[in-house]
């Protein structure tokens, strides 16, 4: 049985997904099955399995490695999953979404993400990418009667399919040059050739880069992001903006910092302008947005830029920073979209910036939580976002990317401008027309939001343990 150990976490999640489908199939019309708890059980199982696998460095079938790096990302994904389950309830009830399908797709996507984080073979990575992507495409368009939602899903699907094709093409080239799709072997072949980059290899690297850049929505491959984020139900947006990013960056790090590490100088040179443009476009265009979700979409592009900076730095700090950043970003962003989801009405998305006017007076607790999330995204101490950014910038300084770091800190000041616009609206502007705000916050969603805020404070004030954990995770593979 030892051979299966590494896939146990994702198997738990996939099992929960199947259970969710069966439960929905066998439910009597009108009966409400406790499907979300099934997902929670699966995720808790995955969490327990991950803890048991910690430090064992097991691998299964030679293509899935449950090393600490993968497990850390799995942990992030479990958090993403739990928060998404907790925050999806209100949206599903309000929109009358098919409960069983929704949760099943969410869980399937999660299992795909977990596979992507632990895969050590390019083909398996591709497989995982497809598992998660297809589930997320469907989730994006799950409001079938909504034109916006359908349009978003279709755009996301088309561009995503393109990027998958690029990625697959890249794999083919890599195979052509090195004769393998396994990361270890690719790494050793490239290393044995010396750092001499043949044109064919560079084409391969470039194609892989494009594939990843699409998934992490790096500029100029970010065009789908605002549309998809705006069209999907907020809970789904929160899920895909964090889960997909975490999984994609995990694979990105694994491929580029282990297999393609000998070519670091070459691909970092290409990534330099991409990272710079991602940070700049993400924040500068974000300033011009009047829709909260589009704004957060651009903010998410910008955060991708910081992650790219950490990835390029490549040193111990950089790799640790990717992990820590993904964790804090996931919790904060899910929290923000959770609040957005709670404020949504059936016939009104309430997602204009001006819809937040005077929220402090109607819902002081929600306003305080949203403020916390916005300030953390903006990188204010003593919140988690500050430590994450500080980690990234120390990595960049250490690696000598001083100019990118300067761009990074300046764009983060610009980003503060739009995060604060929401705060200004909530606290300093009197409420305009009274919108029917979601009357009361469901207990579970409220608890999830409060828990996220507490974690954000904890990571901001006492980050040492988690930082050490992140640093320990990266030692196992690189």
């Amino acid at each position: 049985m030892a051979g299966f150990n590494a896939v146990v976490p994702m198997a738990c999640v996939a099992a929960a997904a199947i259970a969710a489908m069966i439960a929905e199939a066998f439910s009597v019309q009108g009966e409400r099955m406790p499907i979300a708890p099934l997902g929670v059980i699966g995720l808790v199982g995955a969490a327990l399995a991950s803890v048991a696998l910690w430090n064992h460095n097991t691998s299964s079938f030679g293509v899935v490695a449950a090393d600490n790096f993968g497990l850390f990302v799995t942990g992030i994904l479990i958090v993403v999953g739990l928060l998404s389950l907790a925050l999806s309830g209100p949206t599903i009830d309000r929109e009358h979404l098919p409960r069983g399908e929704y949760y099943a797709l969410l869980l399937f996507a999660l299992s795909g993400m977990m596979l992507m984080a632990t895969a050590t073979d390019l083909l398996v990575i591709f497989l995982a990418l497809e598992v998660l992507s297809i589930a997320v495409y469907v989730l994006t368009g799950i409001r079938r009667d909504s034109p916006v939602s359908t349009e978003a899903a279709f755009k996301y699907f088309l561009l995503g399919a393109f990027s998958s094709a690029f990625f697959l093409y890249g794999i083919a080239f890599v195979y052509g040059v090195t004769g393998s799709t396994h990361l270890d072997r690719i790494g050793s072949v490239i290393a044995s050739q010396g750092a001499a980059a043949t044109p064919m290899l560079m084409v391969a690297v470039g194609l892989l880069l494009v594939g990843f850049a699409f998934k992490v929505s790096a500029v100029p491959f970010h065009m789908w992001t605002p549309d998809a984020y705006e069209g999907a139900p907020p809970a789904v947006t929160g899920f895909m903006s964090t889960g997909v990013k975490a999984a994609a960056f995990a694979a990105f790090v694994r491929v580029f910092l282990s297999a393609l590490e000998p070519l670091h100088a070459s691909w970092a040179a290409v990534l330099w302008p991409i990272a710079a443009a991602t940070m700049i476009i993400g924040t500068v265009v974000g300033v011009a947005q009047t829709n909260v979700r589009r704004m957060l979409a651009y903010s998410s592009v910008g955060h991708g830029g910081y992650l790219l900076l950490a990835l390029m730095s490549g040193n111990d700090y950089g790799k640790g920073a990717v992990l820590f950043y993904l964790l804090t970003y996931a919790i904060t962003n899910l929290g923000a979209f959770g609040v957005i989801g709670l404020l949504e009405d059936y016939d009104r998305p309430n997602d204009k910036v001006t819809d937040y006017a005077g929220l402090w007076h109607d819902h002081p607790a929600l306003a305080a939580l949203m403020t916390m999330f916005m300030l953390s995204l903006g990188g204010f101490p003593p919140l988690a976002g500050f430590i994450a950014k500080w980690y990234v910038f120390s990595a960049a300084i250490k690696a000598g990317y001083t100019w990118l770091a300067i761009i990074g800190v300046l764009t983060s000041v610009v980003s503060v401008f739009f995060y604060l616009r929401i705060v200004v609206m909530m606290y300093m502007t009197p409420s305009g027309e009274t919108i029917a705000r979601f009357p009361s916050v469901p207990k579970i969603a409220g608890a999830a939001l409060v828990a996220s805020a507490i974690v954000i404070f904890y990571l901001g004030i006492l980050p040492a343990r988690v930082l050490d954990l992140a640093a320990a995770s990266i030692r196992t593979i690189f």
Partner: protein
Amino acid sequence: MHFPILSTLIALPIVGALLLLFVRDDEQSEGTIRAVALTVSGLVFAETLLLWSRFDAVSPEFQFIERHDWIPSFGVSYLVGVDGISLLLVVLTGFLTPIALLGSWESVHKRVKAFSMFILLLESAMIGVFVSLDLFLFYVFWDAMLIPMYFLIGIWGYERRIYAAVKFLLYTMAGSVLMLLAILGLAYLHSQATGQYSFDLLKLYELPIAANLQVWFFLAFALAFAIKVPLFPFHTWLPDAHVEAPTAGSVILAGVLLKMGTYGLVRFAFPLFPAAAVFFAPVLATLAVVGIIYGALVAMVQPDMKKLVAYSSVSHLGFVVLGIAAMNVQGVQGAVYQMLSHGISTGGLFLVVGMLSDRRHTRLIAEYGGLKKVTPHLVAVFLIITLASIGLPGLNGFVGEFLILLGVFKWNPRMAAFAATGVILSATYMLWMFQRVNYGPITSEKNERLVDLRPREWLVILPIVALAILMGVLPNLFLRPIEPAVRRMLSHIEQGSAPLRIQAER
């Protein structure tokens, strides 16, 4: 292990703010909220006095040091301590916070709970800035402080409050993020030299840094502090923030927040990068002198009293920077003294203007006139504070300005000559304003029935007046603890810059 007096100073206001969370937020509990906030800030002030009484004024070293590992893998520690320079600034913070709270008793009526919480959180962060001896910790407090101030201006301010709040926050942040990079760069240099990351100021003081790097680091730090001071030409956020902020916000902003910029120069920028400091001192001094004269000239033509006081701050803080740039004992000591004294007199001015605008809901000089007949007590207090701000001998403002000019004269007589015109100009604009508001006939009938100082207002303003006189009559009481710390810092700069001086000036 001694009593962690500095940590409790930082923690006490936070605890107070958390306590307030459990008080109901309605009109009945307004009194409770105010009482809690005032008691907590009063306790903090008492503790700062305790700190002063225990402080060994002869020693130049940092005292009451507490050190705990915080993020060991990055060399970040929780390290706090005070020397003579920061001690009195902590006391000033403790002194002004209860006054600011009490001073807003009448003017702030909406959301009193949140208001009091933000003031307390702000106090915590301000004390944190002054006592941090770890650069990371310092930066955390430095940035964290922006948030409560932002809310104070944005929620309880006047008409253009949102613009002012956002401008305040973005300006300050834009300056400080580059300092963050410089801090990271310093820690990295330390790791190259010793193999270990460290943000410990005492260790970084000993770190030799190449002259060309010093230039960049110094510029990054100095920019952050220059915006905070604010030094000309980075001052444009200040009038907006001051004018739009509620009285309590203005008092704290002028009284404490601006001092963080000059404090940062003394504590960080100059001693960390001595060669660059020597190199850039004339530039800073020139900007300071321009600020002194420019601020005074602009203040002269302001129709709005709050704006006038705001521009006078630009002018007065120019003196502080000038004194620091002189880099001799008189100059720097005078600068530190002037920081305290400006906190007292400008804080007092904002309170008086606040009292007037509480009564008349306008801050325009032209709306007043002849107040002396209506509110003699208020005018008397106003006069003392005005004279203190001008620098009349016997009051607090004189000592600082005199020492600064003395120090600057020893260093560069021409600068001193230009700066001295600022003294004359400040007398002009302050007295002219005073005259137009308080003397002459009563021009507006709305002013005929103004109430004189209420008991609560006496309570707010008397300590300020008393302190202004005390600081003028017994300056040594305050100068004594400052001097050893200043001498230590100057000799450190002297040693650090000597081997690199030629290189930097080439």
